[in-house]
């Protein structure tokens, strides 16, 4: 027995010290780089998840069940996770909402991805990811979740794959057997395009307190404009007591903008909680334009045209960023793109991934951009 006043060593520092010593065997790598060879899920330098199941929800949406590695933290329903996806050899990072509830008891979680028109990454996930693949992941993040304690009556307004956070919340409430009186309005083009349709309809049939309203916008034909898309009248019809409810909404920008307008007019903005999809990048016009370049570390904003390389732009602004050959071969000038868009002058390729490596001596602005310089 340990006496209560006896100091127990802090396990984190003790573990940290052990791992520091173990890492000395692997220098300059870490022990985790070798542990990873045995099982990628055991690595601690980069959390991995293994794909254990794939399931098509609709013709263009798929649920992927992932088993996360050690150090995973349970999500709160509604949160999202960063996932790294290799497509044709290139690594992309995307954020997807976790569609499973934390109450799931097999240590796995699911994401549900729908193919975006022209979306290379989403298409790759839905069509090419196989059971057994390993994907690097981050920890669950985001503040779009239900409060723990206060009993609220939720109104879910979702469209398309925007249903995923709501699904995680509803599943979690059902698993905890504390589903309150809930109204759920969901928009989808057709009946068969409704993700999780079977589960939702079954829930609506079994639970009296869950009221599901599916709006199939493309099936309404002529009345699409008046009855299909979201409007105040429609909301009044489907959910007369919407002003007393807390609204959780996720869907395309148009829907969210309409909701925000409505709630602001009613003076109820604090009752509206929205989750946005990733902001769309502006189209690059055929005649390339420059833009405002922001150098984040130096806290400088400069206007640049579409053909002057960013290294030159920085130097003209009085900065002296690292550089070497000035011809794109030595990569001394590599920096990270924080946001926006640049064009590789050599290939004409446009970089718009935040976090992408930019060779400033051979890249020019393609619209506004922000660099880690």
């Amino acid at each position: 027995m340990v006496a209560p006043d006896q100091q127990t060593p802090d396990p984190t520092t003790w573990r940290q010290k052990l791992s520091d010593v173990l890492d000395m065997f692997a220098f300059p790598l870490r022990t985790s780089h070798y542990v990873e060879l045995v099982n990628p899920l055991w690595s601690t330098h980069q959390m991995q998840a293994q794909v254990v199941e794939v399931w098509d929800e609709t013709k263009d949406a798929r649920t992927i069940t992932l088993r996360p590695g050690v150090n995973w933290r349970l999500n709160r329903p509604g949160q999202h996770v960063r996932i790294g996806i290799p497509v044709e050899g290139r690594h992309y990072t995307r954020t997807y909402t976790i569609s499973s509830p934390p109450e799931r008891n097999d240590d796995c979680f699911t994401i549900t991805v729908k193919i975006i028109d022209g979306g290379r990454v989403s298409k790759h996930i839905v069509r090419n990811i196989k059971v057994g693949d390993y994907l690097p992941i981050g920890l669950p993040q985001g503040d779009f979740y239900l409060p723990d304690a206060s009993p609220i009556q939720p109104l879910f307004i979702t469209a398309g794959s925007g249903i995923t956070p709501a699904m995680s919340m509803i599943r979690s409430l059902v698993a905890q057997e504390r589903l309150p009186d809930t109204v759920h309005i969901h928009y989808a083009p057709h009946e068969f395009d409704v993700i999780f349709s079977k589960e939702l309809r079954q829930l609506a049939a079994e639970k009296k307190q869950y009221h599901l309203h599916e709006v199939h916008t493309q099936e309404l034909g002529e009345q699409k404009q008046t009855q299909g898309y979201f409007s105040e009248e429609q909301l009044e019809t489907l959910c007369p007591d919407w002003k007393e409810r807390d609204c959780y909404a996720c869907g395309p920008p148009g829907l969210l903008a309409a909701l925000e307008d409505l709630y602001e007019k009613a003076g109820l903005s604090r009752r509206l909680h929205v989750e946005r999809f990733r902001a769309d990048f502006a189209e690059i016009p055929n005649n390339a334009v420059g833009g405002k370049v922001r150098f984040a570390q130096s806290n400088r904003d400069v206007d640049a045209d579409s053909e002057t390389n960013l290294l030159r732009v920085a130097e003209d602004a009085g900065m002296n960023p690292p550089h070497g050959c000035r011809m794109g071969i030595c990569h001394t000038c590599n920096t990270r793109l924080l946001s926006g868009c640049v064009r590789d002058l050599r290939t004409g390729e446009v970089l718009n991934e935040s976090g992408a490596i930019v060779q400033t001596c051979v890249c020019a602005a393609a619209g506004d951009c922000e660099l880690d310089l």
Partner: protein
Amino acid sequence: MTTKKPLPVDLTDEQIDEFGREMEAIYDDIMQSRGESDRQYILGLIRTQRSMALIGRLFMYAGLFFLPAWPHAMAGWTATLLIMGLGTFMLGIAKILENMEIAHNVLHAQWDWMKDPDIQSNTWEWDTMSPSDRWMHSHNVVHHTWTNVLEKDLDVGYGIMRVTPLQEWHPKYLPQPVYFLLLMLFFEEGVALHEQALIDVVEGRKKASEFKPLAKRIGRKIWGQVRKDYIMWPGLAALVAVPISFFVPESPLLVFALVAGANFIANIMRNIWAFMIIFCGHFPEGVYNFTPDQVEGESRGQWYLRQLLGSANITGGSLFHVLSGNLSHQIEHHLFPDMCSNRYPEASQRVRAVAARYGLPYNRASLWRQFGTTWLKNLRLAFPGGKPQPEVARA
């Protein structure tokens, strides 16, 4: 644009520009075709290399269970040294793969296009004494931009050797065959100390205190390497050997020395191999050196031409190419330093054909010819004189 003194070729400026465009076309073709198979290549290679390093070290440990003091029938020096030797060989190969085909090329940003956060030139740290970013400066910037230009490229003789008759002879070059041997054995240490700042201090252009912060950084990296190979791994073996020594009369000190010695041999093995391959890159017979006035105002086409004339390839099989980090395709590596190395063989086919069409030399021979002439040249140039390079390079 023209340089003050022309390059040693009988091509017009227009022809040189056209040559440059042909090189760029090869580069663009290959760079655009990169994809999933290239990613699988580097990931597989890294997995293989790390497994090999780990298994090699475990073999060294396994060998200790066959020391003569053990009572079982297989015990004896032959079995011990055989198994430890196998482990040493595997570790040596793993270190060669890491330094040459993986780290060297990752640090050239050859794999940055994958955007894989684990395989990036600015975060990769390699298994050698030189810190990655220091080496990237002296190598990627100084050496690759100024390839074979006297007074600009630090790699021309590394400040201690005379590798071309263009360098004026000085009595300090007399012992260079000895330097050659020493550098071969301690190449890793040599690379770590290969710094312009250090040369400046030695030659009195800078105060020693100015070199101190850099020395500290390099020192930390060296300490990490030494600690791993000569304290941690042998130390763990010795630690385990202490309780065992009560039952098996074998000195833990001997165990420590055996493991440390095996690691030392693996490091030397890597040093010799890296030295041989790297010295074959720019010093064999037939490689051209340049003077600063030949590169002033150089055009892109002239730059490509200089890379071709200043580098030499080694012939061999595909395993040889991988073990040499594809520096056996030194010419292609210098023409396209950020092209992923597994594509050099296909680039090589095309570059050779272009060189032949322009009547330019394409220096390509076996390891023995390239290293042999490098060594002979080193001996010859220790003394005054030496055969000047041809005025005009022709195939």
